[in-house]
């Protein structure tokens, strides 16, 4: 399944028109963003309802670095975006997750949502950040003297980064650390009695996911050429929840499939049904969530395959 998706991803620019390759690049960046939310919610059971705050702050951060400092080197701006996402997630995660007592799902959901909403309002009201209009005309990302502009090169850059992040996440969720995350998601109180420091575990995965969202946000900023307050706010935060729920939370490939499916359907519907496409999309999402609560991926994988196995089954020993 994963190989098939990768093969399609590699071949796509050869069959798509240029403007569609640009659109596909945007979708791949959103897949990266969806992976970050899937890690915290699908794997660790932390409802980060404001994941866009890391995506957007990193986007704004690299836009300012490019605009005010003239730094556009890919070797500097992408690590900077990653670090900005990580730093914001550390601060917000420290506040929401590292209290004396374990935080409830609702507390974290509302806390992250508030963070996202507050960041959106700050961006809208701050002249330095461009207010409602955001920061336009960000210079393109560069490698040496070469400008990386939207098109096939940017597409393959994003595909490569997505693949790398996907493999790192895959390694992580299949490791013993992934088993600890599964325990966290299934019964947080139970694993605390085994000796797991659950708040610390949560803060670690939350920060790691924040870094991925930051990386996605910085790629998005340079790809679009401008950043705007919606990137930080509730709309983007809700969108990523839908991607993951639609595709199937708790599976990495589910997050990718969900993002591609929603964006592809939106693209097609917005062309052919210009007036009512959001309603059709909403109904589709509702149908999937009602009848396939485990997402589209559950059409292919059973519960056992989705949860996965962490230890060696006995027959492998013999």
């Amino acid at each position: 399944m994963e190989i098939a998706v990768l093969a399609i991803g590699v071949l796509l620019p050869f069959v798509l028109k240029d403007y569609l390759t640009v659109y596909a690049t945007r979708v791949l960046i959103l897949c990266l963003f969806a992976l970050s939310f899937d890690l915290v919610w699908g794997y660790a059971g932390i409802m980060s309802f404001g994941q866009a705050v890391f995506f957007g702050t990193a986007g704004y951060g690299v836009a300012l670095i490019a605009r005010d400092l003239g730094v556009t080197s890919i070797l500097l701006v992408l690590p900077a975006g990653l670090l900005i996402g990580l730093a914001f997630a550390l601060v917000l995660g420290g506040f929401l997750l590292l209290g004396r007592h374990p935080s409830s799902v609702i507390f974290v959901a509302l806390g992250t949502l508030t963070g996202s909403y507050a960041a959106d309002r700050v961006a809208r009201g701050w002249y330095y950040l461009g207010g409602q209009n955001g920061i336009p005309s960000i210079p393109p990302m560069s490698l040496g003297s070469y400008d990386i502009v939207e098109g096939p090169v940017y597409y393959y850059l994003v595909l490569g980064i997505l693949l790398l992040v996907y493999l790192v996440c895959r390694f992580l969720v299949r490791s013993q650390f992934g088993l600890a995350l599964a325990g966290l998601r299934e019964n947080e109180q139970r694993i605390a009695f085994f000796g797991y420091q659950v708040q610390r575990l949560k803060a670690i995965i939350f920060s790691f996911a924040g870094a991925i969202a930051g990386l996605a946000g910085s790629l998005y900023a340079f790809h679009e050429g401008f950043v705007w307050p919606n990137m930080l706010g509730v709309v983007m935060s809700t969108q990523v929840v839908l991607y993951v729920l639609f595709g199937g939370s708790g599976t990495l490939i589910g997050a990718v499939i969900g993002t591609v499916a929603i964006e592809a359907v939106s693209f097609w519907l917005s062309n052919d049904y210009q007036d009512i496409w959001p309603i059709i999309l909403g109904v589709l999402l509702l149908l999937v969530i009602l009848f396939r609560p485990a997402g589209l991926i559950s059409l292919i994988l059973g519960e056992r395959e989705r949860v996965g196995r962490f230890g060696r089954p006995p027959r492998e020993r013999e």
Partner: protein
Amino acid sequence: MALFEARGLIKVFGKLTALNGADLTVAENEFHGLIGPNGSGKSTLMKCVAGAEIPTAGKVTFGGRDITQAPPAERARAGMSLKFQITSVLPALTLYDNILLALQAQTSLPSLVFSRTRGVLHDRVMAMLEQFRLVDRAAESASVLSHGQQQWLEIAMALAPEPKLLLLDEPTGGMSLEERRVTGELLQPIKKRCSLVIVEHDLDFIRDICDRLTVLDQGSVLDCGSVQHIQSSARVQEVYLRRV
């Protein structure tokens, strides 16, 4: 020297005093039973021992160290392990992974990320499953087990990290007579390895495996001593046994 000691524990929930100056002392390799009628404070005392509840007043020491305010994870790291009253195995995971999850709790973060202890712990996981007669079902999800088998799995999870003090809250709850008998057999061999505090309603079961008993009534200790002492205690017979 006692391995575990609780002195003058008081636990108040609103207007209800669940524990009213309860004491509990457990020696090394001692099997200690907590009995008492419903509402006598057994489970609350167990929760205060395990760290699920922090007592309103009183002191708890483990291995000579004051752990009264310590959270559950810290107590677990010190060598205390709990089996909950309500079965709380992780149903979506395999039996193997349930045990591995319990065993790897004290592995460092880098070792978890790079799965450094997965191979090392394999034999211990299999040994626990073997000991609790679940080895044939290692690769199945815990959700498909019968209630009694889930109780065994949870005891195995609590025992896997080789605790100094094992806390079992009603381990035979909901089990058939045969399953209770087998549970007694499964618990006997651990006597050489750790101390045990057990809350149980089945007096025959608790009489068979425990060295000492503490009888609670209305949040206070009614009597404490050997099984023979408790069986012949007029106070216990008056207040507790007559009600059962």
